[in-house]
Structure formats: C-alpha cells, structure tokens
C-alpha cells in the first residue's frame, strides 16, 4: 500500500441520518491538507496515508457504525474514471448493491456493540422415511 497517496471512499449507510454534505463539511473541518470530493453516497478523501487514517479515525469516533470506508485505486478526478471527463465508471453496480447491504450491517454492528454473539444456524436434518411416506400419502 502506498504511503504517499491514499484515496479513500467514505460511504454513508442508508439507515443513517447523516448527509454527504454534513460528512464533507466535517472532513473539511479537520484541515485543508486533504482533497475532499462530495459524492452521492458520501465522499472521497485523498491525502497521504497517515492523514487519511487520522480522518477515518475521527469520522469513526463521531459516527461509529454509520460510515463505512475502503480504499480506491484511482485518484480523485482521474480522467480515466471521472464522469466529468467522460471516464468509465466500472464497479459502481457493486457499490450500489453494497450500499443497500450497509443498512443491515449497521444494525448488525449496533447489536454486536450491545453484546450480541454469533448463533450458529440450526442444523438441517433429514426427514424420517415414515414421515415422508405420510406426506406422500396425503397428497
């Protein structure tokens, strides 16, 4: 992973009351060294890795289970990706799908923070032959 440049994608869970505008203002308030770009799902933040991690920690402190993040390979406004410069946008279909999943993950994180533990699903058993016979005879 590069230390010089890290572009990180911050995505807001659909269950959150936070808006991309509020998130961008918050990131801007941490200083002017990072490039911040507002998007429909949250924002993109670009800076040296250490600074990005500091911003991520502060955002997590404020909104622990509402904002999710991952790194992005291309820099902000890269002509090969940016829609403003007619770039392609591969990967957006998956982001959209995962954005819907974030609502459930947010609930999961909240419950785990409250003490929920993993419950293994009940094991599926085979139906006894006699029971199966009865079902067949009824129909």
């Amino acid at each position: 992973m590069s230390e010089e440049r890290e572009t990180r994608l911050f995505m807001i869970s659909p269950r959150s009351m936070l808006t991309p505008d509020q998130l961008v203002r918050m990131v801007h308030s941490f200083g002017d060294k990072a490039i911040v770009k507002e998007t429909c799902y949250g924002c993109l933040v670009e800076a040296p890795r250490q600074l990005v991690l500091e911003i991520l920690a502060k955002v997590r402190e404020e909104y622990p289970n509402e904002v999710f993040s991952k790194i992005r390979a291309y820099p902000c406004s890269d002509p090969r990706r940016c829609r403003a410069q007619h770039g392609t946008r591969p990967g957006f279909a998956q982001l959209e799908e995962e954005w819907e999943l974030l609502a459930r993950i947010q609930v999961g994180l909240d419950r785990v923070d409250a003490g929920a533990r993993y419950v293994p699903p009940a094991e599926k058993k085979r139906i006894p032959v006699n029971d199966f016979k009865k079902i067949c005879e009824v129909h």
Partner: protein
Amino acid sequence: MKVFIDPPNSLVLFDLVERFGHQPLSTMAAIQERVDNIEVDMPPMNVTLDDVVKGLKYAGVEVPSGIRGRMALWGPLIEEADAAIIMDDCPYSFGCVGCERSNLMVKYLIKRRGIPALHVSYPEDDEQATNFVAQTKEFLEGLE
C-alpha cells in the same frame, strides 16, 4: 495480520477487517500499485507482460485470459495472506467463464494454502447481518 477478502473488492469486508484491527488485502491496493507505479493506460483492463507471466503461475495458457488476468492480481495477495474471509453467495459475484472460474480458483487456492478461512453467507435480513458481523468479529479477534 493480513486478511484476504473475497470478493476482493468488497466494501463491507474491507471495512470490517480494518475495523477489527487487521490489514485487508484487496484488489484496490493491487490496482493502486499499478496506477501509481506502472505506465499502463487503464489497469486492470490493460496488463503488463509481468502480469501475464504471474497469471500463468496459476492458470495455463488454454484457460480464458480473463482468469489469468485476475489471478495475476489476486494470486500474489493470496500467497501473502495470513487468513481469509470469503463471502459465498454475493448477488454481484457471478459470471460465466472468466468471472466464475476465477472465483472458484480463488477459493481453491485459499483452501490449498491451508490458512484460517471463514466462509460467511450474504446477509439477507437484520438477523443474518447480526450473525455475520458477530461471526466475523469472533474470527478476526481469534487470529491474534
């Protein structure tokens, strides 16, 4: 510890691995390395000769080139990984020759390496999501 995630570009898995204190190994980092250091037009769509050679380590010349291209990115990550989390039935993780065979190849390579691997299913509701998060957390905390 370095944890390989499958699907390798998953936001949810990347976030959870990082949240619970480990380093996720993802496609994005591998592509970023190529974007920053190699003069190719549009990685991962364009590859270098080195990528082709790396891909041949995992899949022969007779298999579709898409598999070799993907394995050139993912193969070294799997070799580097100390553990793996695999989400089995993602609705966006499907395909025919290149995509699906690459997914199967990734699972096979993880199994062959013998590293601790967690298989989780895609959560369809809040209950399953809670179970998924709890299971992932317990797995990652147990890696120390």
